[in-house]
């Protein structure tokens, strides 16, 4: 990963045309120059030129970015603002350390899968006993973002699952979010892959992909986690590593950059070449369906899939194969405002961005909203609750599973 001062040339490529102001979700709410790529790049540039200190205010402005990459895509000279912001956060972390809450999150909670589960278990307990109701209002609002948590994590369930054996093997990455919050998505993925006659190899030694560490400039831990994942898969000998989480997918695909110029780079790049989103893997392996079911489904593009991995058509194809009535929403690829923990740290701004998304969902009349990232899903479910709607949020693979398991209406899977 390039240190901040090596981005000088890119910083000077910003021609200040303002194209980013037209697409930035934060700017659409804040409407101030400090809240958009053009301003943030200027702040970083002035800091590197020695005209601006690393003040708390500057940290706030650097934090106030969802990393959705909308500005990068629309930028005429294609300044890599997302990378510059991450490098600036890393620079800040080195010079000034991390804020306390983030420090705990990055260094303690997210470094071991068990720790993350423990935190969520405590939340479950608090909810069961009603202790969570004692939280001050500002914290309670944030706690409400997290959905009902399942009784068992996927890791627990996995112990009772006998995985099918086959010559065709694919690796599967256990995302922390799906493991803890949406184990049913992982279950659906295995069901579908096994129906297609694949053996699903799930190494349990994997850890957090390091998205939050990468995002908030904790490069050291990001590398540690990345290396554990690379090792966990190298032992399995699979050629394909699938994930149902857009964020994990894009983070794992950036491992090459993380180890740039290091001795581990070659192995990291070989790992990267195997990582693939499940939608993309399945999109050319499913039968096409002619009849349309009654369910109307719309799709929200996670930033980490559509702009980081360039996967736009595949999830739509998966939904098509499920035989549902697909209805495209307006601004489907506009960020939902979730941003991992952004919704917790910047609740009000996040909700304004979410409201626009939910309005677009509502306009389609869909009863199912599909999306391919658990972080988006948490945010979207919160939005639906907030607006008093009854739309179900599912991963495309769950929509597929439901349609295949439905009696009578099962389009037969033919292996190609």
């Amino acid at each position, binding site marked *: 990963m390039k240190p901040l001062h090596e981005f000088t040339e890119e910083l000077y490529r910003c*021609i200040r*045309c303002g194209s980013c102001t*037209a697409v930035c979700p934060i700017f659409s709410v804040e409407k101030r*120059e400090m809240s958009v790529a*053009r301003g943030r790049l*200027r702040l970083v540039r002035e800091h590197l030129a020695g005209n601006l200190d690393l003040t708390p205010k500057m940290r706030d402005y650097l934090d106030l970015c969802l990393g959705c990459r909308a500005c990068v895509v629309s930028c005429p000279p294609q300044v890599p603002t997302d990378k510059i912001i991450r490098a600036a956060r890393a620079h800040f972390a080195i010079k000034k350390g991390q804020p306390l809450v983030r420090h705990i999150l990055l260094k303690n909670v997210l470094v071991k899968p068990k720790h993350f589960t423990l935190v969520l278990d405590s939340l479950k307990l608090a909810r069961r006993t009603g202790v969570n109701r004692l939280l001050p209002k500002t914290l309670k609002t944030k706690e409400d973002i997290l959905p009902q948590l399942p009784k068992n994590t996927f890791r627990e369930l996995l112990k009772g699952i006998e995985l099918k054996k086959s010559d065709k093997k694919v690796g599967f990455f256990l995302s922390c979010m799906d493991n803890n919050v949406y184990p049913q998505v992982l279950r659906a993925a295995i069901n579908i892959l096994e129906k297609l006659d694949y053996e699903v190899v799930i190494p349990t030694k994997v850890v957090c992909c390091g998205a939050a560490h990468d995002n908030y400039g904790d490069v050291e831990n990001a590398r540690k986690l990345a290396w554990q994942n690379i090792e966990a898969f190298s032992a399995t000998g699979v050629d394909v590593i699938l994930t149902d989480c857009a964020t994990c997918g894009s983070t794992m695909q950036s491992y090459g950059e993380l180890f740039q110029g290091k001795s581990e780079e070659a192995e990291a790049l070989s790992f990267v070449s195997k990582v693939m989103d499940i939608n993309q893997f399945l999109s050319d392996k499913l039968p096409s369906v002619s009849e349309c079911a009654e369910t109307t489904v719309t799709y929200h593009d996670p930033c980490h899939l559509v702009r980081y991995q360039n996967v736009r058509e595949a999830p739509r194809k998966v939904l098509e194969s499920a035989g549902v009535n697909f209805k495209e929403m307006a601004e489907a690829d506009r960020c939902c405002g979730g941003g991992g923990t952004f919704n917790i740290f910047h609740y009000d701004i996040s909700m304004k961005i979410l409201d626009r998304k939910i309005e677009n969902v509502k306009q389609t009349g869909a009863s199912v909203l599909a999306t391919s990232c658990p972080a988006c899903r948490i945010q979207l479910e919160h939005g639906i609750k907030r607006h008093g709607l009854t739309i179900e949020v599912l991963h495309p693979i769950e929509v597929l599973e439901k349609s295949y398991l439905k009696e009578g209406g099962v389009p037969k899977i033919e292996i190609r």
Partner: protein
Amino acid sequence: MLEKSFVHSLQQCVGRENVLTDKEDIICYSYDPTPNHQIPEAVVIPGTIEEISQVVMLANQAGIPITPRGGGSNICGNSIPIKGGIVLAMHRFDRIIEIDTANLCAVVQAGVITADFQRQVEALGLFYPPDPQASSMSMLGGNVATNAGGPRGFKYGVTRDYVLGFKMVLADGRILKMGGKTVKNVTGYDLTKLFVGSEGTLGIFTELILRLIPLPESKRTMLAVFDDLLDAARTVSGVIAAKIIPTTLEFMDREAMRLIEAYVPCGLPVDAAAAILIEVDGSERDVPVQIKQVEEVCRQFGAREIRIATTEAESNQIWAGRKAAFSSMAKSAPTLYVEDVTVPRSKIPDIVKTITDLAAKYQLKIPILGHAGDGNMHPIILTDENNHDEIKRVKLAIDEMFKAALELGGTLSGEHGIGLDKVKFMEWELGETGIDVMRKIKHALDPRNIMNSNKVLPAEAVE
């Protein structure tokens, strides 16, 4: 530095959270797309016309300069607070107050984004034609202040042709209301025409009454390719002589097409001298007839190739190159000088030749785009602000380019405005008398010279 007591008064006008003075904040209001920059002393973000009036009154009393800022997307240096003072950011004025379908007009606040407004009126089958390149980030107030144009200007006119009336805050803080919802209005002097295009030097627009027209039913796009610039220019005149007014006559020279093709290959003929993207619009019945006529004219004047889009996808394909033009140039050089010299339509080959010669003479890359229908050329100088030697040559080339445009009976600026960058050429075009009359107007309305000072008119020897 502004005095504490003055900042305090500003805060009392607009609220503490709407006055920015921290360095991290004011730095972000120091720039626009031109290479100029200057950090203001404060940024004020008013929410009502009364607040602006009070702020301006305070500034006028204290002699503090004010620079109004809309979307910050102008390309003449208009948003630069060159004398420090206050930047007045207009983004809270973001309400479309009314779209009046009976009177075919709309009442909007000045901070509404141009493209947002267009989407809303088009959903009602209406049309607001001015389409500056920056429409997805520019504000209508800024468009009015710079009298913005765009590719559709030839057929539909420019922003001025759609302003029926406005509210503005004058340099002494008084509120001026002009015009209304009527198309006809000859009451008194036509101040609307005077203030539209005044580039923030005479006051701050806060509310606009804009004329709308019915949205054309249909459109068709084509690309005509030429081996000779003269043929391309004659074709433009030929189309107009055939009494067809296309919506768009977008000119691209070879250098521009090469850059675009290198950036996104979209099938532009890089060996041709020029291509013209032509679009006609009108009723379902009219459009096929028009496009046929245009095709005949193109053939008659020696187009080597003509591509007519038959589907929306093909039309998008033709547009893809033109739309990527600016990006392709921004990607190829760190600094762009985007000019808009404009000449009588018949002189297009002369100005294109002048620019091409200047590029060779000063060893510069100057691809040319242009709105051929109205002779509005966009030579874009690709350079690097850190290469001081090259910047010197850029400045010399610009001087000569403007001189040539004026000699051809043209003008310094077709649609971008004068701002900071072209002030020194004003006397060439206007002469002493022209400058004097404009100065008298400025003095009468802004005696303390606080409103966007040093823009449009050259500073006087003694202020």
